């Protein structure tokens, strides 16, 4: 696509590629959307909605799309026996992935608080926390924002587009987009190619934002430990929120436990170099 609109949002670089130039109104709306999203969910700014919840607890009214995010987290929390949880925020912060980016673990790893009525109520688009609690939507938030940007483009009648949030992407095109799957240990190489026609492809890798020895941002809420056996995942799904969340979930649980609930394709790469993939991605990896 010939036209590219680039911006930074929620801590990463974004590009929106389209066949025709975006009118200023579309660009403005996208920038307002991502700024609003950041103002609610960013753990890294003291004035955000989730920062207020972390400081004092209480009630936080999310935008309308917060309800879908809550439903997805709730489903995954159940399917993963609590491994995928919006309450890993305190674990991440304790390990140094905090608002100050101290990158220094503060305490031994501890499990996240169980997600129940006493810790966090997520009803529709309203969050209620009896006590201060850190909510982290990192597993699915970026994907949801990709979808929300795409829906702005849909609303303005933009026919073909690619929304790319540094590797998490949603595409609607005349023909499939060829996407390389980045080698987990070598950004100059790819381990396979995926044709992305319509829908989303999201990646997650344990080396992203790696910090300290063996600590990284995919945390099992049940143990507080980081996940080391899976090193990279990719998920194809109709929407980016689902693809993003499942890419994280596949670090923590078996794909077959997700298969009855979600429609998706996946690749998992393990620390010993072997890979698992679903039939939808059969042939995507380069053969040995």
């Amino acid at each position, binding site marked *: 696509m010939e036209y590219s609109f680039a911006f930074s949002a929620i801590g990463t670089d974004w590009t929106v590629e389209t066949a025709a130039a975006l009118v200023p109104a579309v660009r403005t709306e996208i920038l307002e959307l991502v700024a609003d999203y950041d103002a609610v969910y960013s753990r890294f700014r003291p004035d955000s909605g989730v920062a207020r919840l972390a400081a004092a607890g209480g009630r936080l009214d999310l935008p309308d799309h917060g309800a879908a995010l809550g439903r997805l987290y709730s489903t995954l929390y159940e399917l993963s026996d609590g491994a995928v949880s919006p309450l890993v925020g305190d674990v991440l912060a304790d390990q140094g992935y905090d608002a100050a980016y101290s990158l220094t673990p503060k305490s031994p790893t501890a499990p996240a608080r169980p997600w129940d009525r006493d810790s966090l109520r997520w009803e529709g688009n309203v969050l209620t926390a009896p006590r201060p609690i850190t909510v982290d939507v990192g597993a699915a938030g970026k994907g949801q924002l990709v979808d929300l940007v795409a829906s702005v483009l849909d609303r303005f009648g933009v026919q073909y587009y690619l929304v*790319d949030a540094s590797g998490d992407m949603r595409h609607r095109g005349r023909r499939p987009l060829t996407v390389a799957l*980045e*080698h*987990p240990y*070598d950004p100059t*190489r790819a381990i396979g190619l995926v044709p992305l026609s319509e829908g989303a492809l999201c990646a997650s890798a344990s080396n992203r934002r790696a910090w300290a*020895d063996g600590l990284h941002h995919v945390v099992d809420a049940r143990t507080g430990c980081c996940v080391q056996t899976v090193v990279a995942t990719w998920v194809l799904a109709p929407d980016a929120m689902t693809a993003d969340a499942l890419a994280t979930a596949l670090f923590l649980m078996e794909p077959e436990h997700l298969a009855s609930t979600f429609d998706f394709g996946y690749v998992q790469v393990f620390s*010993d170099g072997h890979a698992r993939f679903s039939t939808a991605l059969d042939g995507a990896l*380069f053969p040995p």
Partner: protein
Amino acid sequence: MNQRQVPPLRTCCTVSVPHQVMTALAAASLLGSAGCAGPGGVAGSNSPDKTAASSSDPVTASAPDSGVTVKKYADGEYTQVGGYVSPGGNEEIGITLTVKDDVVTAVSTEPMPSNPTAKLYQERFSGGIQDQIVGVRLDDLAVEKVAGSSLTSGGFAQAAEKIKSEARK
């Protein structure tokens, strides 16, 4: 793709800290090139605390087609055994890189699963399993986008530099 077995010239020290696993793989990446991962044994010892001594001098004879440029890295196989802590306990992994004319021509890893979880992951299930991922240089591919997460950790880059300097002649 160079499939020739290069005799082990040097065995890097074996270690048991997490970043060393990453380091060995990073060396594969930063030395560059299409890795042709094939089956291959780990030349070094699996014992985490044992340091293997350097063996012979590096082979310096150039390959017939290598031209006149000076090589930065000694040809040979480099092996490391690394350990890491997974949620299921300690695991080890052996990694062997073959360097030829400043290019990594082969990468092989040997899992040494010591706990049931790691073994479980090796069981087959519907879909498919590939024993080894294979990297192809992005420069050699016609792609429009890349999905992944480029390495950003400064510590990782530093560790990789150390391995590069070890292989440097």
